[in-house]
């Protein structure tokens, strides 16, 4: 490759093109203007957001939908600080995004110049790595390193802060010569032979094994291996929230979501297991409950790419640190077919005693429950939509009632629990996968945090359908107040705008749905409409998500749906 003389701003776009980037989500401003000026010579399509937080969530949604790297861009100061929530969200959920921020001129750094902020300092603990670039000739290598770091090993966000003078000055640009130099970075670890042997021994001895599959299966692309492993060893599979979809919901060995709002049989099976095989999950407090009583009689095998997760929350007996797909392939070679008839019979018996399914099987009485809406959405889309959820009750109902059959069919903010995530993330997801039917399932609270991105949706002609699960409350917080704060509904009732009029003001078709019978027709109409549609589902206001394990309680101590509520609903 011949060397070319280019400005830093041009190098940024050239490097992004070389990394295969097709879309950048961003918002211009003073310190990033040189880069925006150079955009005219690039093939990359820039999507103008309405708030930089939206740009980061869109990049995140783009990455999660496609398996590639999402890119967000913003200016210095407030532009950069607005990205913080999105970066932290991506960090907690191991999502590969690269954020490029403008910075004041290198001579002005430290002077409290206009729109100067120490964004590398601020994002230090919430990025996998970050850079401050003050010279144009550092840009190519930095961008190549950033992409490599973001997507390799345990993925995560990388931020590159580029001073205005680094964008403006020129230097020789040579992509080939700018290979990453990362002597301290080792993303590919693999377990030792004796560790495999120990794991195999535990697997072959187990009578009551459960697989706990998480986001790592998705990241590693190990869904096929997981399926073979589970079938060959006849081990039921419980999923984390971010793991939903990596194992088909309709499979006989599928248990469903584990943890705080997992169905009763899932948590019971985990508590009574004699072996837990944790695959690409991190024993988050939302899935373990009280650690002291968590799966007390179970041996534990932990397959995980990040060594810092080993023994963090739960002490394990065997740790296999490495890429899940490779590790599962190794394990499959020595795996002998197993049978766990009694254990699986027990599972079928427990499933018959489900509290959650009560509401799903209610007669169609016209009474609108959020669970009904989600269930109808699942049925109408034949479980094939890409659903992007926000955070709260609707998120848990979606996880319970939308049965995901394939990976990357659910995108949600798990670790950080970022309200306002869904709408922008869905825009990113749709841009990444234009052929997918994308649905936003969002609460009335979270929707209002980032609803300005409706404008982005319209401007970019992004066909995303939005289902607001509108119960007039910050529902999950209200639920906690109901259970743990003596029904003191402090600061949780919402006086909402008219969402239909609001959507129409943005140029988006919209309807309100108040009756069960109207749900499916509204969903069908939205699917058939060419542009985006917003549906305001006005649901039962004080419904709660059941079952529920209170924070820090034993995993098998579940709060179940009061039967009186079920009966009332059925009577109507």
């Amino acid at each position, binding site marked *: 490759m011949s060397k070319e003389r280019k400005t830093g701003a041009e190098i940024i776009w050239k490097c992004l093109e070389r990394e295969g980037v097709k879309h950048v989500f961003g918002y211009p401003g003073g310190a990033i203007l040189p880069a925006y000026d150079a955009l005219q010579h690039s093939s990359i399509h820039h999507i103008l957001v309405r708030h930089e937080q939206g740009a980061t969530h869109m990049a995140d949604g783009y990455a999660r939908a496609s398996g590639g790297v999402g890119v967000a861009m913003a200016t210095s100061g407030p532009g950069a600080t607005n990205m913080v929530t999105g970066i932290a969200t991506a960090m907690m959920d191991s999502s590969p995004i690269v954020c490029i921020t403008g910075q004041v001129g290198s001579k002005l750094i430290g002077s409290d110049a206009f729109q100067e902020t120490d964004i*590398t*300092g601020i994002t*230090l*603990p919430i990025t*996998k*790595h970050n850079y*401050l670039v003050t010279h144009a000739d550092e840009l190519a290598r930095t961008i190549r390193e950033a992409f490599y*770091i973001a997507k390799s090993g345990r993925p995560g966000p990388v931020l590159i802060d580029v001073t205005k003078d680094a964008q403006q000055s020129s230097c020789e640009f040579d992509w080939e010569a700018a290979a*990453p*130099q*990362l*002597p*301290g*970075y*080792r993303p*590919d*670890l*693999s377990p*030792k032979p004796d*560790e495999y042997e120990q794991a195999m021994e535990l697997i072959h001895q187990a009578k009551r094994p459960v697989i706990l599959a998480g986001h790592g299966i998705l990241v590693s692309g190990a869904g096929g291996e997981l399926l073979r492993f589970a079938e060959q060893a006849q081990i039921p599979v419980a999923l984390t929230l971010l793991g939903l979809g990596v194992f088909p919901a309709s499979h006989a060995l599928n248990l469903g979501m584990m943890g705080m709002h997992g169905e009763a049989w899932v948590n019971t099976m985990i508590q009574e297991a004699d072996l837990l095989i944790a695959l690409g999950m991190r024993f988050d407090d939302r899935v373990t409950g009280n650690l002291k009583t968590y799966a007390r009689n179970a041996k534990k095998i932990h397959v995980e790419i*990040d*060594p*810092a997760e*080993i*023994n*963090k929350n739960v*002490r*394990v*007996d*065997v*740790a296999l*640190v490495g890429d899940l797909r490779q590790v599962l392939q190794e394990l499959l070679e020595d795996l002998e077919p197993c049978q766990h008839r009694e254990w699986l019979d027990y599972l079928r018996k427990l499933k018959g005693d489900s509290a959650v399914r009560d509401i799903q099987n209610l007669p169609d009485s016209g009474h609108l429950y959020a669970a009904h809406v989600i269930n109808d959405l699942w049925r109408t889309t034949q479980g094939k939509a890409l659903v992007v959820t926000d955070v709260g009750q609707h998120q848990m109902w979606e996880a319970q009632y939308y049965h995901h059959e394939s990976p990357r069919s659910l995108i949600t903010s798990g670790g950080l629990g970022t309200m306002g995530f869904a709408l922008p993330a869905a825009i990113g997801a749709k841009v990444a996968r234009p052929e997918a039917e994308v649905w936003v399932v969002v609460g009335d609270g979270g929707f209002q945090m980032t609803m300005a991105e409706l404008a982005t949706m319209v401007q970019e002609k992004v066909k995303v359908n939005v289902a607001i699960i509108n119960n007039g409350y910050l529902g999950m917080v209200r639920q906690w107040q109901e259970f743990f704060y003596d029904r003191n509904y402090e600061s949780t009732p919402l006086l909402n705008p008219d969402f239909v009029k609001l959507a129409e003001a943005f140029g988006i078709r919209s309807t309100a749905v108040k009756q069960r019978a109207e749900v499916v027709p509204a969903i069908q109409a939205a699917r058939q409409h060419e542009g985006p549609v917003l549906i305001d589902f006005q649901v039962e206001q004080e419904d709660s998500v059941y079952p529920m394990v209170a924070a820090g309680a034993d995993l098998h101590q579940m709060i179940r749906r009061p039967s009186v509520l079920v009966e009332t609903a059925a009577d109507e």
Partner: protein
Amino acid sequence: MLNTFVVYVEDKPGVLTRVASLFRRRAFNIDSLTVGRTEKPGVSRMTIVVDTDETGARRLEAHLYKLINVLLVENVTAEAAVYRELAMIRVTATAAQRSHIMDLVEVFRAKVVDVSPDSMMIEITGTDDKIDGLLHVLEGYGVLEMVRTGRVAMRRGAKAANGASAGTDSAEAAPASGTISYSV
């Protein structure tokens, strides 16, 4: 218990902040941290002393490795290693007390590096215990000022640290992943 880590890092701006920030973020308390150049250009060496248990030490090691600029981490706590610390102590010393103090200095193989009419400055190198010992006997005279460098450590024997030869020029030069074990 006190764990001593030897950490090789790339000599780049902000690396000290990344390391120090990690300890704060993960709620570990640093007992002491020293940093300086090494025999290899571009590589700095830190000695970090942390009060934590074995599990904590393993997690910390794994977390340190996650920092992109960290080249090698060695927990030398259970290894044969030489520990040293340097202290400078200013102690009240009248003319009449001087020779007593100098006797003590002799016993501890320390040095007097400055004398003024009412005080002396003593330099001592050794293990933390030895410095504590000298301080203890000097207390009666009145310690006016003290500065300690914190612990530095080096393993005994001919074997250099695994990563001391790890260059900074290419990714291949990093120690093979096989040398790092995360067995439980």
